[in-house]
């Protein structure tokens, strides 16, 4: 494909419409570039599809069970939204702890981050879902009936707790970096006006830090949608569990897992798009 690179005028003197012409040319080049990239994507999807069909991939089966797996999308999204919300609160507390001058707060936050980041998410899910009830039973026999029962969580509750704790630890570092990126002068200006340390954090530092952090929270949310597949091991009826159920029964693993993968992919593409728009809007905040 050849690109038109001729400008409307070859004259060396400055034409007032030159800027517009340049812009139009730029837009055209960009459009062609985007179109080329899109054709590469389409070609790749076509090649993969044809290959699979040649190898006895059964699209009819996907069509039949599409709706069933699709019903898991809401569960996956719900899990992710609830978990990212709780994780954000945990991360804020964690970051304040890590940055605190109080040795107990620092110790607690440091321990939390190290423990959670140092162990696999799958193990954390098992401990919360299968391990805690064991302790709960023990507590019940010791006479702490209420506390014992509380420790026996449903699969959904366990999933949200595990994802929140896990992402909260990683996001603690994101929050900490965001808070530390705000110039020291901001704090000095606030405290010299008479704001307390906490007022300074709440009114001056955090509003600026959170604006910097939001794109990272978005990325964490996208990553979490995919990590939430792990809660299928507890039988939560989200995308992966639903796909596995039929795939296993009819030995149609490829069909069902490709379907599940496609659903996750679409979810993340949509989330990324929303995240990008949000980021652009944030970049133009405070401009009036």
């Amino acid at each position, binding site marked *: 494909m050849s690109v038109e690179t001729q400008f409307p005028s070859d004259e060396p003197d400055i034409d007032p419409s030159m800027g517009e012409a340049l812009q139009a040319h730029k837009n055209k080049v960009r459009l062609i570039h985007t179109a080329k990239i899109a054709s590469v994507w389409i070609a790749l999807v076509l090649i993969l599809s044809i290959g699979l069909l040649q190898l006895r991939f059964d699209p009819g089966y996907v069509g039949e069970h599409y709706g069933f797996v699709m019903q898991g999308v809401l569960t996956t999204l719900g899990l992710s939204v609830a978990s990212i919300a709780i994780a954000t609160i945990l991360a804020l507390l964690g970051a304040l702890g890590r940055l605190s001058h109080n040795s107990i707060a620092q110790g607690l936050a440091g321990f939390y981050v190290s423990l959670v980041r140092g162990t696999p998410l799958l193990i954390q899910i098992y401990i919360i879902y299968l391990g805690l009830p064991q302790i709960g039973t023990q507590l019940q026999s010791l006479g702490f009936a209420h506390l014992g029962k509380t420790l026996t969580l449903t699969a959904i509750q366990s999933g949200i707790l595990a994802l929140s704790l896990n992402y909260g630890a990683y996001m603690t570092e994101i929050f900490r970096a965001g808070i530390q990126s705000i*110039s020291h*002068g*901001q704090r*000095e*200006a*606030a*405290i*010299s*006006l*008479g*704001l*307390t340390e906490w*007022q300074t954090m709440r*009114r*001056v530092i955090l*509003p*600026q830090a959170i*604006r910097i952090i939001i794109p990272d929270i978005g990325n964490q949310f996208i990553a979490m949608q995919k990590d939430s597949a792990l809660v299928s091991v507890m039988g939560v009826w989200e995308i992966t569990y639903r796909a596995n159920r039929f795939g296993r029964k009819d030995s149609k693993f490829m069909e069902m897992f490709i379907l599940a993968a496609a659903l996750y992919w679409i979810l993340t593409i949509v989330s990324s798009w929303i995240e990008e728009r949000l980021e652009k809007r944030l970049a133009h*905040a*405070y*401009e*009036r």
Partner: protein
Amino acid sequence: MLMNDNAIIHVENLHKWFGKLHVLKGVSFSVSPKEVMVLIGRSGSGKSTLLRCLNFLEEPTAGTISVAGDSITTAPGVKLDPKKILAIRLKMGMVFQEFNLFPHMTALGNVIEGLVTVKKMSQDEAIAMGEKYLSKVGLFEKRDVFPIRLSGGQKQRIAIARSLAMEPQVMLFDEPTSALDPELIGEVLDVMKQLAYEGTTMMIVTHEMSFANDVADRIIYVDHGEIVEQGEPEKIFNHPSDDRTRVFLRTFLHTDQSD
């Protein structure tokens, strides 16, 4: 050393160590109400640190600081009472070299932040007060503008309004024009001259010698963490008694002109 009973600021034997570095070596001085005191000296002489110690942005290592009836004496190992520090901070406004406006608040938002959060004023009261001080620095029409849309000189004038709105008894200026493009310095100095004329008590760290000459009641020359010499501008600039002051002024005024 000049000491008087009606002093609004009284500093005695102030020491500051940064690790092994002895930055302030037992500085003592007083400032009278309505006095404009200008601190001059080389960069690294300790003049900014001195100013920052007064409202405890830097914690002094030892010494006594009294501001309008509140007094804090400290020494190594002494734990300071945050309430006492707050009381002193509220009596002083601070203007920084880098303005340090809050970028997520409008000009008015910046000016009323302390009124609402610290003084617990109602929104209406605070806005009326904020508008008054925005007008005072000539920027009422920028009330709803965010700092990113302001020039350096405008930012610094808003920063001055933000400090003034808290109605402190003393204004501290830490090199308020050093971060400004030359053509923007004048508007900030004009606001400060106006304040001086109205009888605001001020302590100013600056390299603007002709401005210092115009507004200062007293010049203090600081070198290596000590007050070398102080007096009226006429005396310091024209008849300095100490050799160090003479050398500083000669090299400084020379480089100033060649800049």
